[in-house]
């Protein structure tokens, strides 16, 4: 299951002067979202509607309500910035986010001060679903709410670039405000965060009407009444656990959405969801099994989207605080006992890829994989490493897997079978998702296997997301000082996306992989199935779908 | 052999839904022994069935006492209770349910022989066969289950079960009510003969006056849990004191055509 990751002390970066200057002069005159995206969407037209079938994700309208299914909420809300979409190599109307560019949205432009610390934002004339035009007060109040609401995820995610909104965010006038960050090097991650869920700005005029002494930010009211955002859609019908109807807002700041009505129906069974798209009862199915995707995408009317660099990884954290994985050699042996290609072929039916042993996306500017270990399935080598570690007769361990993820269970079974040749005797402990999450955080099992992603894609964020000392997402409970030092060094460099920084990230990631606290198995393609009637499905780094990008092909 | 059941100011209260109390039997005094044939008559709900259950030690009074030869039934030891049952037996009313449908009639008849007479199986079977023959029943029928014989036959088996231990008091609870009138007569005669021949007492409980009057020497009329009239059959029938008795007697006259 995808999860928002709170990276702890992420993303200390310093951009080069050149990049800074470039960003500073960029006034985003060109709308890069709506018009550039869907050349083939002519027929969308008025009244177009589409149906999405999804499992029950526990719909949660904002981060302030805690973790849940954020997709409908994401489409009611709008963020300050936006990562643009480009066509995926697959074509057929499938798109992917350009995760290293942060374009205009609720902010029509911004400038950066010469020291790289203060960002001045100019707001657009976006109008909320309640009819109020956006002002700087909305921004200030939204961040006050995000940071002031107990249980809100925003504060954890936005640290360390934004830790004290009252001090860091200043109103200049109704349409202008500044945010000052503590280190210039945090800028890239900061902009990325403003483009993700944490960048959502709420209509404070509307929300303030529903404030009570017990509920100073109207969080309780807004949990039931989602239409206080500046996003492309408003919710016109919501039956929890059953369905949501979302209606396009023609006064949306980026222009009227092409699909006028989005019907979200909750269908628990993945096979039924896949079939609904196949039979034309739905246009898009979420959380489809790879086997269904592979089979059904043979149908010319169906698309299993594939993108260059999906950020969802299937991975196996090996918990380093207890035997046998307290021994680096045993962890390395496991990395050689994992049947990578078999998992990609058998479980993901080719809808996954392994570009190497690492976790950083290889399309980041400055990326290098020099010196990485050659983890491939090699039982002989694994056996030798195990013997060297003092386990000549092999070793057993328990691998925890969530019952909610059939593909992950199947991957575990592939590993269990193939790792026998290397001397690993694996007991697969399948458990309910809630118990799995708990064990994962408490490091109680000896190893875990899961599918997960970093929501914000900058190298320092990605490197820290599962390694923050004592962090809740440090599944392997791994601490290795040289790695932390290397990461800290990278954060002192001026530009996180420079070649120089790339070298630093490479040396840190090399240690990450040599020490093997986590076996990164492969990148998994989006698990959705789309009707070819629909264009504009776009992979996003948060893996929640942007409905505004959808269009329809005329029959 | 002396066998005396003494009811002294017996009251039996049942608690209904919501805790409301209802006295099924209230202030009843009765004396039952082997010397008389006592009829107890009353409509359903009059408390006579409760009297029967208390008389047999199947239920116990809320107040007052039911004693057998001076010992309260409620506090009897198991051996004393067996000795009591050896002397006081029941011919139950609903013959379709007074035998366990899963067991043969012979099984049912062996029980009192084993439990009360402590006979072995062979001796029990001999006693059973004797009793059945005395009641004009083919012993071969005893191998059947209760639903495999006719209602009349079943009623004779019910009587046989009581008689097989040669009790001194036989309690008949609506023993003939379910039978055809012709069969009723023969069963009543049979009971009467047995009592006369074996010096046994009889308690005949029924809602029907004619059969009760026919077989009884003494009559007790119950109404709403109380005894409203008692005395020799002739006196009760012809010198009725209580208006309820009068309605019973009137109904009897109409059906039987007895002149007033």
């Amino acid at each position, binding site marked *: 299951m995808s999860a928002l990751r709170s990276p702890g002390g992420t993303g200390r970066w310093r951009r080069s002067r050149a990049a800074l200057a470039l960003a500073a002069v960029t006034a985003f005159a060109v709308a890069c979202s709506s018009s550039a995206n869907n050349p083939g969407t002519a027929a969308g037209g008025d009244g177009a509607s589409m149906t999405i079938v999804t499992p029950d994700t526990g719909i949660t309208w904002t981060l302030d309500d805690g973790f849940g299914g954020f997709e409908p909420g994401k489409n009611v809300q709008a963020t300050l910035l936006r990562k643009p979409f480009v066509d995926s190599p697959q074509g057929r109307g499938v798109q992917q986010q350009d995760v290293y560019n942060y374009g205009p949205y609720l902010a029509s432009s911004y400038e950066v001060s010469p020291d790289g610390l203060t960002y001045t934002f100019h707001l657009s004339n976006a109008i909320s679903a309640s009819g109020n035009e956006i002002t700087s007060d909305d921004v200030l109040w939204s961040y006050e709410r995000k940071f002031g609401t107990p249980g809100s995820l925003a504060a954890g995610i936005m640290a360390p670039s934004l830790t004290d909104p009252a001090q860091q965010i200043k109103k200049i006038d109704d349409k202008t405000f500044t945010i000052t960050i503590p280190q210039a090097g945090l800028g890239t991650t900061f902009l990325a965060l403003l483009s993700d869920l944490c960048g959502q700005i709420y209509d404070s005029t509307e929300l303030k009407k529903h404030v009570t002494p017990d509920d100073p930010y109207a969080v309780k009211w807004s949990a039931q009444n989602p239409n206080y955002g500046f996003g492309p859609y408003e919710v016109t019908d919501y039956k929890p656990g059953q369905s949501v109807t979302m209606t396009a807002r023609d006064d949306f700041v980026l222009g009227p959405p092409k699909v006028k009505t989005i019907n979200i129906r909750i269908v628990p*069974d*993945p*096979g*039924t969801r*896949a*079939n609904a798209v196949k039979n034309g009862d739905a246009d898009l199915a979420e959380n489809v*099994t790879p*086997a*269904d995707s592979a*089979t*059904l995408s043979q149908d010319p009317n169906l698309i299993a989207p594939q993108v260059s660099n999906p950020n969802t990884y299937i991975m196996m954290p090996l918990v380093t605080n207890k035997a046998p994985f307290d021994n680096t050699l045993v962890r390395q042996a496991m990395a050689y006992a994992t049947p990578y290609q*078999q998992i990609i*072929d*058998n*479980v993901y039916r080719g809808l996954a890829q392994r570009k190497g042993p690492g976790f950083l996306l290889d399309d980041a500017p400055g990326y290098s994989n020099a010196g990485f270990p050659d983890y491939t399935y090699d039982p002989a080598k694994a056996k030798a490493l195990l013997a060297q570690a003092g386990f000549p007769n092999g070793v057993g361990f328990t691998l925890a*897997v*969530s*019952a909610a993820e*059939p593909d992950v*269970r*199947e991957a*575990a*079974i*592939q590993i*269990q*079978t*193939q790792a026998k040749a290397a001397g690993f005797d694996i007991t*697969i*402990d*399948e458990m*309910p998702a809630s*118990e*799995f999450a708990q064990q994962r955080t408490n490091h109680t099992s000896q190893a875990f296997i899961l599918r997960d992603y970093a929501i914000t894609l900058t190298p320092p964020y990605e490197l820290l997301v599962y390694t923050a000392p004592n962090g809740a997402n440090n599944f392997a409970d791994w601490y290795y000082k040289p790695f932390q030092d290397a990461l800290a060094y990278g954060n002192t460099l001026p530009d996180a996306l420079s070649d120089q920084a790339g070298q630093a990230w490479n040396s840190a990631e090399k240690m990450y992989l040599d020490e093997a606290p986590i076996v990164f198995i492969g990148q998994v393609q989006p698990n959705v199935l789309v009707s070819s009637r629909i264009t504009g499905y776009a992979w996003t780094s948060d893996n929640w779908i942007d409905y505004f990008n959808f269009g329809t092909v005329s029959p | 052999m002396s066998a005396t059941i003494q009811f002294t100011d017996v009251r039996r209260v049942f608690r209904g839904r919501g805790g409301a109390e209802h006295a099924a039997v209230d202030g009843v005094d009765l004396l039952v022994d082997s010397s008389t044939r006592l009829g107890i008559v009353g409509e359903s709900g009059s408390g006579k069935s409760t009297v029967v*259950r208390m008389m*047999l030690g*199947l239920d116990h009074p809320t107040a007052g006492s039911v004693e057998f030869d001076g010992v309260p039934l409620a506090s009897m030891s*198991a051996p004393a209770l*067996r000795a009591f*049952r050896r002397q006081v*037996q029941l011919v*139950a*009313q609903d013959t*379709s*349910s*007074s*035998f*366990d*449908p*899963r*067991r043969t009639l012979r099984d*049912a008849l062996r*029980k*009192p022989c*084993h*439990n*009360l007479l402590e006979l072995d199986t062979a001796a029990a079977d001999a006693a059973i066969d004797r009793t059945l023959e005395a009641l004009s029943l083919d012993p071969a029928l005893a191998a059947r*289950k209760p*639903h495999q014989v006719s209602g009349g036959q079943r009623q004779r088996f*019910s009587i046989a*079960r009581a008689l097989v231990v040669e009790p001194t008091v036989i309690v008949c609870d609506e023993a003939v009510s379910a039978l055809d009138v012709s069969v009723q007569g023969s069963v009543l005669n049979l009971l009467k003969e047995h009592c006369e021949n074996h010096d046994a007492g009889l308690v005949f409980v029924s809602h029907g006056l004619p059969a009760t009057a026919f077989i009884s020497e003494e009559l007790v009329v119950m109404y709403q849990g109380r005894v409203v009239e008692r005395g020799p059959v002739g006196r009760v029938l012809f010198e009725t004191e209580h208006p309820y008795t009068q309605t019973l007697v009137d109904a009897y006259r109409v059906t039987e055509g007895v002149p007033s």
Partner: protein
Amino acid sequence: MALALDTPDRDTRRRRTRRPGIASVTLVPAAILVLLAVLGPVLVPFSPIDVVDRPDLPPGGAHWFGTDSAGMDVFSRTIAATRNNLLIGLITTVLATSLGILIGLVVGMNESRRGPVGTLARGVSRALDLVQAVPAIIIGLVLIAFFGASIPSLTVALTVCLLPNQARLVRAEVLRVRGEAYLDAARVSGDSELVLIAKHVLPNSSWPALENASLVFGSAIVLTAGLGFLGVGLHPPTPEWGSMIAIGAPGAASGRWWSALFPAVALALTVFAVSGVGRRLFGDD
């Protein structure tokens, strides 16, 4: 009266099943099952717990029942599961039914009594209603979470889930039987209360639970599947029909019918075989 009407029917059935030829026929499927449970692991062509080929291969030469979504041989797993499922199903059925009868009997005989025994019996009776109002799967979840997933703990959990219904069936029947005149007749014939319960109340009130036993067997396996689906069943890839069905079912919607169908057929045949044995043992007495 209903009883009297229904008994001749039950009698014919008994006569039918007791004809020796027919009787053995009803036991043949059960005998085969037991044989499979004992010999199954030796007979299977592939390891039932290993990935042996490509996933989702349809039934054919090498894999008679095809392979499942992980690439394990469905035939080998279906056969190898017999032992686990028979163990789980039979132990659960025996435990749930015998405990259910015992509890139903005790509750039914005592719940109208005064004093602490009556109060306790009424309490147990309400508790049974309450437990039945909670979905069995949730009870199973909690118990397995507490005891951990193994065949014994699964059996205990399933017993707790399935026992209340058995107890309630028996209790209702006890309440009916308790008023039957033959109990008073037996008392007058000198039977003690214990003998009375053992010889009359028990045989006359336990038949609904016994007749329901083959359903309990099936439910035990279906519940095992449900628990497996929620991730608290046996450790995968332990071969077990319920989890095989649960895992295979979504694929069946997309045309990969074999990985769920064969264990489902095995389950159905087993329930059929067990009900054959049940009829022979308890059909009439």
